[in-house]
C-alpha cells in the first residue's frame, strides 16, 4: 500500500531524510518513531505530497507521488503535527468544505458530520467558530477532517496531542478496527507507550536514517532489551542520561557568577 524507495530530503547542506526505503502492506499499523528533529514529520509530509523530495520514489495506494499527486491525495487522510484550520469557520462549515473538496455527496457529508460530531462529543460546538476552540477540540476537528472521506491510508503525526484520555482510548480502538478493515496506518510519534500498544511493527528514524524496521518482538530479540524505550535508547544512541540529568540540574540551579 505504501512503497518508499531511496527517499531523500535536503535543506541546503542539511539532510533531513537520508536515502530511506520501506514498504507497508494493506491493513498494517506501523509506528514511526524517532527523537525530535530525526526526520519523522518531513517523511510524512513527503508521503502526503506536501513536500517535494530531493530524490527517491513514493507510491501510496498505487499512485505515484510525483506524477499522480491528486489521485494519491484522494485516497489518504492526514493528521498534521500542527493543527491548521480556517479559524473563522464553524466546525460544520470546515468539515463541509473538506467533504466538498473531496467531492463527497451532500447527504453523505451531512450524515458523517453529525455522526462524527456525536462520536467525538463535539455536538455542542458544531456551530461554533474554531477560533474559540481549545487545543484538544482543534485536534478532534483535524482528526474528523482526516476520517471524513473514508481514506484507504491514514498518516497520523502525533495525533493524540492535547486529547483527553477518553478520546485517546477511543482513537486507539478505532485505529485498530480500521486496520482490521484493511486501512493502512502510518503512526508517527515519540510517545513510545502508545506505539508499543498500538503498532505491531516499528520503524525508528535517527538523524534522517532508518535504524530499525521490524516487529516489536524482533526488535526485543535483536537488542536484548525488554522495554521499547530501552530499545529506542539503544538504537538512537541516546546514552548518558544520568550525566545529562546532573548537568541539567546544575544549569537550572546555577546562580549569577560573581563579578
Amino acid at each position: 500500500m505504501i512503497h518508499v524507495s531511496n527517499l531523500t530530503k535536503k535543506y541546503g547542506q542539511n539532510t533531513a531524510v537520508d536515502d530511506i526505503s520501506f514498504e507497508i502492506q494493506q491493513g498494517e499499523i506501523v509506528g514511526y518513531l524517532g527523537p525530535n528533529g530525526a526526520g519523522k514529520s518531513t517523511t510524512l509530509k513527503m508521503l502526503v505530497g506536501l513536500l517535494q523530495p530531493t530524490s527517491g520514489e513514493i507510491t501510496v495506494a498505487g499512485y505515484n507521488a510525483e506524477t499522480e499527486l491528486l489521485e494519491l491525495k484522494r485516497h489518504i487522510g492526514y493528521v498534521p503535527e500542527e493543527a491548521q484550520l480556517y479559524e473563522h469557520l464553524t466546525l460544520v462549515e470546515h468539515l463541509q468544505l473538506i467533504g466538498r473538496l473531496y467531492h463527497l455527496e451532500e447527504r453523505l457529508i451531512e450524515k458523517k458530520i453529525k455522526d462524527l460530531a456525536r462520536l467525538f462529543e463535539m455536538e455542542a460546538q458544531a456551530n461554533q467558530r474554531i477560533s474559540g476552540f481549545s487545543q484538544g477540540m482543534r485536534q478532534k476537528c483535524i482528526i474528523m477532517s482526516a476520517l471524513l472521506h473514508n481514506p484507504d491510508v491514514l498518516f497520523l503525526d502525533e495525533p493524540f496531542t492535547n486529547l483527553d484520555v477518553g478520546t485517546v482510548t477511543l482513537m486507539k480502538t478505532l485505529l485498530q478496527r480500521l486496520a482490521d478493515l484493511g486501512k493502512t496506518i502510518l503512526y508517527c510519534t515519540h510517545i513510545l507507550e502508545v506505539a508499543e500498544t498500538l503498532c505491531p511493527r516499528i520503524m525508528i528514524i535517527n538523524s534522517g536514517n532508518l535504524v530499525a524496521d521490524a516487529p516489536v518482538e524482533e526488535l526485543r530479540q535483536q537488542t536484548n532489551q525488554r522495554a521499547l524505550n530501552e530499545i529506542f535508547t539503544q538504537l538512537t544512541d541516546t546514552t548518558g542520561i544520568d550525566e545529562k540529568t546532573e548537568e541539567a540540574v546544575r544549569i537550572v540551579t546555577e546562580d549569577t557568577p560573581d563579578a
Partner: protein
Amino acid sequence: MLKGFKSRVPGDKLREKIVAMLGASPTQYRLLLKTEKLVDKRALAGKNDLSNTMLAATHVFCFITSIGLTLMPFLFPMDTFTYALMGITMSMIIGLWTMPYLDILLTPINYPVIAHTPVSSRTYFLVKLTQLMSHVVLWLVSLNLLPAIGGIWLRSSESSQFQFFFPFVYLPIAFMSGFFTIGVMTTFAGYLTKLYSKKTLRNIAQYAQLIFFSVFPAVMVLILYYRILPAIPKDKLISSLKWFDALPNGWFAATVSLALGQIERSNIVRNLILTGLAVASTLFLVLVPLRDISKSYSKYLSHLLESGSEQKSKLRVKTPLFARMFRNPTVRVGLCLGSAYMYRDKQILRQLLASLGFTFGMVFAFAQDNIFSLKWIQDSVNIGLSPGFSILFWGIGISLTGCFILAIRYSEHYKASWMLKLAPLQAPRVLWRGVQAAALLYIVVPWTLLMLCIAITFWGILGIFYVLPGLIVFLNVIALSPKPRYSLPLAEEFVQKRMPSAIWVPSLSNIFSSVFVGIQFLTHVIHTSAYYGFYSITVVGGLISFIYFLKENKRVEETVDA
C-alpha cells in the same frame, strides 16, 4: 440542526466555465473562493475600527483623487498626450503603492489548511488570481472612470472629431498600463523573485523596483512643473518631452494620442514605435510571469510549506545599534523587535532606499541648469519657509514613518506574541515605546540628517530652521500613532482587507504636508510677524505636545497594565 454554508451560489457560471477550460476544478474553485471571502469578512466583523471600511474607503479615495485630474481640462488648455500622461502616471503611482497588498493577496496564507486535500495548485492559483484581478479592476475603475469622461472636453489646437471616443480609447489603455505596472512589479518585486535560484539574481530583481518607485513620482512632479505651469518656454517644453518618451507612462500616453489621431505628422513614426513598445511590453510582462507563476505555483506552495523552518534557521537575532541607550528592558525588547522587523521586512528597507534615491535624483535633476533648475526646491520665501523643500521633506518623512508603524501594527508575525506574554515584562504596553524608538532612531534621525545637509548647502546655518518644523511633525506622528489593540507590537491578527491602508499613508502624508505648508505660506502673505508667530507656535507647541503625549501615553500604559 447543523448550520453550514450553501454548496452552490447562483451565477458565476461563465467564470466557472473559464476555470474548467483552464484545467482547474470549478467546484473546488467556487468553494475556496467563497471560503476565502467568508473568512475575511468574519475576521473583521464586530471590530469598530477604520480597517473595516479601509478597502471601500481606498477606492473612494482613488475616485476623489481622480476628480482633480478630471478638472484639469477645464482649467488649463491641455493636449491629449499630457492629459493621458498624467492619468496613466497617477494610475501607475497608486498601482505601485498597492503592490504590497496585491502581493499579499496572491500569497497562499490559508493554503496549509487544505494542502493535503486533492486541490490542484492550478485551482488554488486561479482562486488567488480572481481575488487579485477583482481588486485591480475595481482600483483601475475608481481611478480612471472620471478622467476618461473628462477627456471629452480637452481643448487644444489639435482637437479632432475623435475626441468623443476618448473614454473608449483611454480606459482600455489605462487598464493596460495598470497591468503593465503589476507585470513589472511581479517580475521584479513580487513573490516570483522568491523562486529565483540564485541569490544575486533575486537581490538584483528585488532592488530593481526602486527604479519604478522613484521614476513615476518624479515624472509626475516634472509634468506639473513643465506642462501645467504656463510660463514654461516652448523649447524647454520640447526638450522635456524626450524624457517621457523614454518612460513607460510616455508609451501609453502616446498610444492614446495615436488612437485619437492627435499627432503631428512628424510624430507618427515615434508614436507608432511607442505604441508598439506599450503593447509588446504589457503582453510580455503580463503573460510571461503569469505563465511562469501558474507553472511554478505548486513549487511555490511547497516552498511556502518548508520555508518556515528554513527561515527560522536563517534568522539572526542581533542586538541593534543604540539598544544599550535604553535602560528599561521592556523598551529595549520593543526596539529589538522593531529593528528585527525592519531588517526582515525588506519592503521597509526598499521604501527607505527608494526615498533616498528619489530625493538625490530630484536634487541632481534640478541641478542640471541647462534643462532644469534647483529653484523648485531652493525657493525660499522666508526663513524656514521653502514650500518645495518642506513638502519633499515632510511628505517622504511622514510616509516612511507611517509605513513602518503600520507594517508593525498589522504584521503577520502575531504568532510570536505568546513569547512576549510569557516573558516577565514589567509593562507589556511599554513595548510599543521601543517600536516608536526604532522609528525615531532608524528612520526619522537619518532622514532628518540627510535633509539637514541639503538645507545647510542651500541656506547655510539657517538651514536648521527649514528642518525644525518637519522634525517636530515627525515626533508628533510617532507619539500619536495608534498602538496595537492587543497592547503588543506584532500582535494583531492579519486580515487582508486591512492592507489597503498602506496606500493611504503616502497620499495622506502628502496632503497633510501640503496643507501645513500652505498655512505657513498664508501667514507669510498676511505679514512676516504673523509667519514668525505661527512658526514659533508650531515648533514650541509641537515640542510641548510631543512631550505631553509621551507622558500621557506612559500614564495610560501604567494604568492599563496595573
